[in-house]
């Protein structure tokens, strides 16, 4: 039946490549179909996911990271302590304050200083604004991954409310570089807390509409319910972080277990869901936004009552000349002492963690008593969540991949650092 020139498909080993007219064909396994999703792909973001399909079911998912690896850990070793703050901020610029805060805390631990109380509240203020903006960003991406374009535009539009708030506070839309060792760089401008309260009221109203158009939408329910289930013990075993962990029923939030800054004095809840599926992860985010709004209201009240002083540790501010104090009282801008340019940090090793929008971020900072750190190790939440692709996605259909990707709110630049 077969002529000599025809292909003999029997005896074709796995992994062997053959030339066919117009294409190279490689056998990767029995009945497997290998597709490379990304790095240029509407559903991949800045990464590549290598998926092997059996029919429509994914049997192997291999996340290929590193497309945004910008070598922050190496560069930090050559830069002075203060220059590392904008450097690590570029991991996740949409969550800038949360991402840089533990680094600043680690440096403060090494220097044995603690910021004054107003600075702590100001940091919490920006952290929560960032958290809401980050969750809204994640929900927007999640929405568009499910084909819901309105759910992309609405959170992105409402995120602008909080970006605008952050811009008024810090002077930049995303890259705030706001906390510095010892304090913060700006105080709240005039009328800020009123705007904040308005934004909080608006966001509360909008969350109800999100629920109607997205969370209670039958199409979205059908896509998310029971998809990408991470049971509690598996979540602990994989060491995933943040809302994804709390959606699996683990009560862990760094703000709760090790309250940093002013979080110990604030009244808020950490929502924990039992189901562990993609829908629960979406719900955790919505509930967390509600709690963040609560925190923002409390912080606004607190800041109004507090006197406008104590935004920088005395070590850096006591000797400030008159010009510096004038600039502060005129513009609310905290000028940095020239000392910051050459900040010498005592030798030691410090480990600090914080709850960023996507989960726990940890920093290990080692100093030799010089101007530059000896080693900065950062493990970002997305990098710890990346393992979900490998262990949770197989067994689902190909169309569930965006649902899982969106639900864990994976942000490749943050993972790759």
């Amino acid at each position, binding site marked *: 039946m077969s002529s000599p020139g025809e292909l003999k498909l029997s005896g074709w080993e796995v992994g062997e490549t053959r030339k066919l007219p117009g294409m190279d064909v490689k056998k990767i396994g029995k009945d497997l179909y290998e597709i490379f999703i990304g790095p240029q792909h509407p559903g991949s973001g800045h990464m590549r996911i290598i998926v092997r399909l059996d029919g429509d079911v994914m049997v192997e998912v291999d996340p290929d990271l590193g497309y945004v690896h910008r070598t922050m850990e190496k560069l930090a070793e050559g830069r002075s302590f203060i220059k590392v703050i904008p450097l690590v901020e570029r991991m996740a610029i949409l969550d800038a304050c949360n991402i840089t805060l533990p680094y600043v805390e680690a440096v403060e631990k090494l220097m044995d200083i603690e910021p004054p109380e107003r600075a702590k509240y100001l940091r919490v203020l920006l952290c929560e604004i960032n958290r809401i903006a980050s969750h809204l960003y994640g929900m927007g991406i999640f929405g568009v991954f499910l*084909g819901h374009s309105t759910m992309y535009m609405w959170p992105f539009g409402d995120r602008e409310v909080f970006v605008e708030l952050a811009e008024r506070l810090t002077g930049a839309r995303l890259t705030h570089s706001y906390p510095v060792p010892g304090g913060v760089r700006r105080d709240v401008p005039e009328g800020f807390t009123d705007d904040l309260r308005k934004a909080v009221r608006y966001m509360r109203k909008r969350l109800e509409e999100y629920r109607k158009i997205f969370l209670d939408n039958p199409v979205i329910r059908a896509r998310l319910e029971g998809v990408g289930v991470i049971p509690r013990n598996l979540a602990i075993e994989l060491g995933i972080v943040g809302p994804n962990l709390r959606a699996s029923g683990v009560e862990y939030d760094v703000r709760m277990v090790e309250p940093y800054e002013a979080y110990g004095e604030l009244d808020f809840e950490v929502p924990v869901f039992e189901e562990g599926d993609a829908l629960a992860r979406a719900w955790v985010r919505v509930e967390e936004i509600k709690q963040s709004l609560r925190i923002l209201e409390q912080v606004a009240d607190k800041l109004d009552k507090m006197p406008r002083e104590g935004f920088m540790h005395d070590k850096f501010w006591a000797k400030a000349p008159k010009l510096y104090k004038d600039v502060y009282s005129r513009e609310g801008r905290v000028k940095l002492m020239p000392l910051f340019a050459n900040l010498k940090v005592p030798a030691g090793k410090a480990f600090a963690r914080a709850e960023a929008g996507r989960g726990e971020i940890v920093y290990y900072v080692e100093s030799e008593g010089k101007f530059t750190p000896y080693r900065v190790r950062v493990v970002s939440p997305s990098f710890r969540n990346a393992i979900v692709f490998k262990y949770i996605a197989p067994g689902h*259909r190909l169309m569930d991949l965006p649902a899982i990707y969106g639900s864990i709110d994976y942000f490749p630049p943050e993972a790759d650092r």
Partner: protein
Amino acid sequence: MAGVVDTIISWIFWPPLFQLVIAPGLVAALAIVIFILWFERKTAARVQMRVGPYNVSPRLGGALQLIADLIRYSFQEPIIPKTVDTAAFILAPLAMLVISVVPTAAIPVSPLPWTWPIPMEHSLLVALALTTLSPVFLVAAGWASNNKFSVIGSTREAFMVTAYELVFIISLLAVAAPVHSYNLVEIVEAQAGWRMFAILNPLAFLAAFIAILMSTSGFPFEIPESEHEVVAGPFTEYSGLLYGIDMGAAYIKRYVMSVLLTIAFLGGWKPLDPQPGAGLLAGYIAPLVVVLVKATIVMAVMSFFRAVYGRYRLDQAVDLAWRVILPMALAGYALGLIYGYLGVI
């Protein structure tokens, strides 16, 4: 002189030519598709708190946007990759475009026999049969592209065909049953006043509406071109004019099916009732405009769904079609049979 003009007019309005090429055929289809695409983008923008296409022609609210896109696509470099099957790659979109328009030959836009391109007794069946052809070429386009995403996309389209074809045919039979005829003219004539089949038989209407959404990959069933897994589905490798044709063909199919839906369920030209002996305007153009306006409204509703829904998973969509929509269509058919048995219409 007058004779020449009359001859030209009579040639232009010669039904076989006019109906297929001008209205409701290709030209009207393109015009309405361009309008609908613009409307879709503006609707989505409106719901999404933004403006949508605007700066291209600020006075017209950006209505020329689709013209600009069309020009850009027409003059962009057409890339035909070396690995594709060239003939199938080029012919599939063209065939799809033509096949999408062809059902208009069987769809009457007026009750007067001289306006029909081909007088036929069973026009509903012919129209249905012709609308089922275009998925073949969509699958062919994906297969010819020799791209993994295209192949997955066309496989999905093939799955979707199994989901919607039966539903669409049965729900349209629910209209034929009470009238005891496959003739679309008689079906329209049966729907006088408010006795539209959309109201008398809402189950069949809803089933047919959803089947159209499925067959033209409208939301929430935009699965073959689901961009977050398969890029652009069967059209991933297409560029330039061929991609424009691809996009156009999909929307023209939706338009033709909407016209069919209008005729079958929404009373066609029905507020009007052209009498035999009516002239060109009253007997042909006016009913045509009514049909087109109704079809455009149907398409506008479909466009609005883009702003409200995400997309179902493939297995869920097929499951939904067989478990929910097909029983719904069958119930509608049963209702139609009851109407027919009782002879209420």
